[in-house]
């Protein structure tokens, strides 16, 4: 930047010092979880942080986890995947339609802006406000402890987000291509499916990934609506600590299984992250 000209070497060194500290601050907890999962119980409480030098890594925690608690973990992962995949796909499918409508049509009865506002206002709705009626609703529908209940919830949370992101994306596409298609005799629907949708594909994938991550990480509703059959990974890790005390070596294996999928997926959607987090209030 412009201010770099003066004393640039010192500034550059200081910059890198800050960067390194920030990176260490972010990565250390992940690093600690990974090495703890490869430690023998005795090494966990004798503080040691460098594998091979200070302790001998072992696969035994992972083996024990998958042999003794394999079915439970597998069920948790399966539930998490099914819930997050369906929730993100439904949310993005309906959200893309609505986003396209808001970007390309002018609505008279409910104005476009009011609708966008209304979707955005969902971002301000605390989950605690809907968790009790949702519990009662699911109870009366007989949907407690089913994946359907959590798919419904997570779709609802992800939908406004998908609508607003896709609205922005479609608005940035040139209208002329679709107009040309209309002139050539395409219907509105065909213009949407054949022209606009393929052009928006990268944004579409990114939105699915972000919705998937949020659904995967959701905890409060999972805690309230499921107890055995439909429990996702967030509940599986919550169960371990209380029943088994401080067995960090097992806790860490489960933490990694719960943390890694969304965290790694999110690294692929950096371009859309700012819009994603602010629902389009800030363009990144």
């Amino acid at each position, binding site marked *: 930047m412009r201010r770099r000209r003066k004393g640039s070497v010192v500034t550059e060194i200081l910059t890198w010092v800050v960067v390194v500290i920030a990176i260490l601050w*972010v990565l250390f907890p992940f690093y600690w979880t990974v090495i703890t999962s490869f430690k023998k119980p005795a090494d966990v409480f004798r503080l040691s942080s460098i594998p091979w030098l200070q302790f001998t890594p072992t696969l035994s925690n992972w083996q024990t986890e998958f042999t003794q608690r394999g079915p439970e973990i597998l069920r948790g992962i399966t539930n998490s995947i099914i819930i997050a995949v369906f929730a993100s796909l439904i949310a993005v499918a309906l959200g893309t*339609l609505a986003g396209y409508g808001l970007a390309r049509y002018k609505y008279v009865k409910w104005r476009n802006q009011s609708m966008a506002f209304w*979707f955005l206002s969902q971002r301000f709705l605390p989950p605690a406000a809907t968790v009790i009626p949702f519990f009662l609703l699911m109870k009366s529908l007989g949907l407690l402890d089913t994946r359907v209940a959590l798919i419904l919830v997570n779709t*609802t949370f992800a939908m406004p987000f998908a609508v607003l992101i896709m609205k922005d994306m479609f608005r940035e596409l040139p209208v002329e291509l679709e107009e040309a298609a209309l002139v050539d005799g395409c219907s509105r629907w065909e213009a949407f499916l054949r022209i606009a949708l393929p052009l928006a594909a990268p944004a579409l994938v990114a939105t699915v990934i972000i919705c998937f991550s949020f659904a995967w990480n959701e*905890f409060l509703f999972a805690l309230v609506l499921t107890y055995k059959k439909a429990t996702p990974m967030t509940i599986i890790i919550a169960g371990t600590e209380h029943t088994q005390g401080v067995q960090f070596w097992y806790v*860490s294996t489960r933490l990694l299984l719960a943390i890694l999928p969304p965290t790694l997926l999110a690294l692929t959607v*950096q371009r859309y992250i700012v819009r994603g*987090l602010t629902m389009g209030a800030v363009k990144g």
Partner: protein
Amino acid sequence: MRRRLREKGNAFVIPAIFWVLTFTIFPLVYSFRVSLSKVLYGKLVGFAGASNYLRMFGDYRFWGTLRFTLVLVLISVCATTAIGLGLAIVFNRKMKGLRAFRSILTMPLFTAPVALGYLGVMMFYEENGPINVLLKYLGMGKVPWLSHPLWATLAICLVDIWQWTPFAFIILLAGLQSISDEIYEAAVIDTSSGWAVFRHITLPLLSPVLGTVIMLRMVDAFKAFDIPFSLTSGGPGTATRTLTFYIYTQGLRNFDLGYASAMAYFLLAITMIIGLLFFRRYRELYE
């Protein structure tokens, strides 16, 4: 084109609107009814008027959770915004390799908060946990992170800050990058002080984005539940229970549904006030 098409667009927006209406407005209306009712064993048994709402004023545990929630909001919002702004300024320099590091810094945002709480239990473990060992090297005694109310509060704030600083950072960085270089070049001619440029050029231009960050962070901090639940279980005692935590305990553990719904509406009122402020300022962004 948008202006020309006044008809037939309804099919596009109706499914999403219908879905969100069904699963948010209907539950909210129902929950309002519950908040005005007397509830016994999970069943509504009569009209209670405002008594569930009035009960909040006399409930010291409610005030305790409200106080803790406000402390968390205050510390977390200030710290994440300040650190995020600092990092954003550093990363706004045009230097090679910074982009890759930027991606790494966003990782905490996508880590399940409940998992982070348990991760915190490992990090803050009082006997030989990594943080206490580090502090011992720095000459401090054993810190009772999870067994003393004040330290537990700090521990929760630290985990929350760890998770949400990237949020402020990445959004403020986008804000900084949207300020054009010419403005700076003009400013540098007038003044040589970096601070003056920051104070009189950067900060005013950044203030809309800064406002967005602060308001969204406030809403999210008011909603906090996962981290206190997993890191301290609301303890020691009830020192670190947030509003959502108390609503959960009253409503879904003690099945005091009416009172819990009333408190939920109180929380909703807070976040809606923040929402209204937000909409007032950013109306033009959503035309």
